């Protein structure tokens, strides 16, 4: 195991072109320093417009950045060649907020989960892949016969489980969860939260957990970065920061949460 942190963002900044219709909101990032060590569960907490999803997109290389450096496992991602760029996609996986929009409606659940394996594990034969899908479905709490069905046959919570199984299929070194509970019903949120707790306990996962929910971050994250208007305003152990905040904004946020 290498001694590098898996993710190291230093002074990362991003500006968007001037948006005439979006006023009073800064979507830009400035001076973002984030370090994620192997095996850590790191929360990025912020309200809408704070830039937390932009951070998720930069970490997963879904979007670029204008300044600063991003080292992934010690290597500068800006210098990745095509092969490394391709490999990166199996090393980092993301689960999006909206399970209705993130699964291909024309692919069966098994096909969606298998896609990453077909691309990134070409040596795996069909039977092994099938077995892997069944095992993943079982792990996220879905019956094995789900594989032949289509996403529209599932509820939001089940779809989010499918999205999690899909992300885990290639055994990523880093899992980015972008508001994975927000579009779910209260009772289903708790189910998926329990699933995360189980997965964190059973697997050696490194997770970046993007959320606006102070209480969820406090419960499952080791460390937290609090974002406000495109900047990190406070960081530290989740328990510490979210019970004894030092920053004025964090304090206001905590006081407002029900």
């Amino acid at each position, binding site marked *: 195991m290498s001694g590098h942190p898996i993710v190291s963002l230093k002074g990362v900044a991003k500006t968007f072109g001037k948006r005439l219709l979006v006023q009073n909101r800064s979507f830009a990032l400035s001076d973002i320093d984030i370090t994620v060590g192997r095996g850590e569960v790191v929360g990025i907490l912020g*309200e809408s417009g704070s830039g937390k999803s932009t951070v998720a997109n930069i970490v997963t290389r879904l979007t670029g950045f204008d300044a600063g450096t991003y080292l992934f496992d010690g290597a500068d991602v800006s210098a990745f060649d095509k092969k490394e760029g391709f490999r990166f996609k199996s090393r980092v996986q993301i689960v999006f907020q909206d399970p209705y929009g993130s699964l291909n409606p024309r692919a069966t659940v098994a096909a969606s989960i298998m896609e990453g394996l077909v691309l990134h594990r070409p040596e795996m034969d069909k039977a092994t892949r099938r077995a892997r899908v069944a095992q993943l479905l079982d792990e996220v709490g879905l019956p094995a016969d789900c594989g032949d069905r289509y996403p529209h046959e599932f509820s939001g919570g089940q779809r989010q489980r499918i999205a999690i199984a899909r992300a885990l299929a290639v055994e990523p070194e880093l899992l980015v969860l972008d508001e994975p509970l927000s579009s779910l*019903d209260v009772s289903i949120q708790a189910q998926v939260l*329990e699933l995360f707790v189980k997965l964190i306990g059973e697997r050696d996962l490194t997770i970046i957990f993007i959320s606006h929910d102070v209480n*969820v971050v406090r419960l*499952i994250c080791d460390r937290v970065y609090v974002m406000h208007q495109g900047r990190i305003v406070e960081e530290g152990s989740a328990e510490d920061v979210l019970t004894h905040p030092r920053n004025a904004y964090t304090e206001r946020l905590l006081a407002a*949460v029900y």
Partner: protein
Amino acid sequence: MTEALFAMDDVTVALRSNGRKMVTGVGLSVKPGEAFGVVGESGSGKTLLTRTVFGLQDDAELVSGRVRFDGQLLPEQGYARAARKLLGGRIGFVPQDPFSSLNPTMRVGKQITEALYLARGMPMGAQRTKARAIEVLGEVGIPEPELAFNQFPDQFSGGMRQRIVFAIALAQEPKLLIADEPTTALDAITQRRVIELMLGRCRSHGMALILISHNLELLRQSVDRIAVLYGGQLHNITHADDIGSRTVHPYTEALFECIPSKEKTLADIRAIPGEPVGAGFGTKGCAFASRCRYAEPICRETQLPLNGDQPGRFSACLLGRGADA
């Protein structure tokens, strides 16, 4: 005991298209000046019930039950029209989405004065109406209300827009304010401000509030009593303080255990197994029985009880849980 300001009794709501009964046998009452919460997951029927009861839902109708407001029984014939008439006058309504509930082509001030004219006719004269509108904008915490009076909705953030909608509702001095998920589109800090603004109005002007939300913890900390809907059935009416401290209806208890609130650790959070049942379950058996940890065979077969004339609280649990007064 004070006379209820607003009461519904055995209300059943059905879709016009196929007559399917979506919300069944709901009875509740709200006292003057009371902050009353309605909680339910998506599809529980909470929005359909309120919108139909206040005549806003075109594709559903009241098929049984009585609704009373301020001593007046609403007629069975032409119900929706009669209910609709109360809105904008003695009853104010704040819908969920502050981005679509204001007219984007009309100045904020005009939207408030228009509401005043519609509610009261023109007894005040233009100058005083304008003064009143500016006064209300100030009351809901809009900075520089004179300036805001001449601005358009798109010049305000979501929280400020929701305050403007609130100002429109308050301009007519309603006795009852209905707020349907008024803060869902807002972030945490703004959410608390808007909720506290509404609660403050209850305390200062004796206005009653019906706050509809999916967030039980928000309601528990905000209102006096909470009605809990599930599968289109009324399951529980409980004092907010009782949640987490005394035996309440099993669904209320389970819903509360799902929520990761401030005081809880991971061990305190217990998910409800299975998927929520949508509205339209009917009245035969308890809709929650399939997910309830206490469920027994009788829960699936017995007719669900109605809320009779019990004063503060009600539990529809067929095993009698949470029913002790």
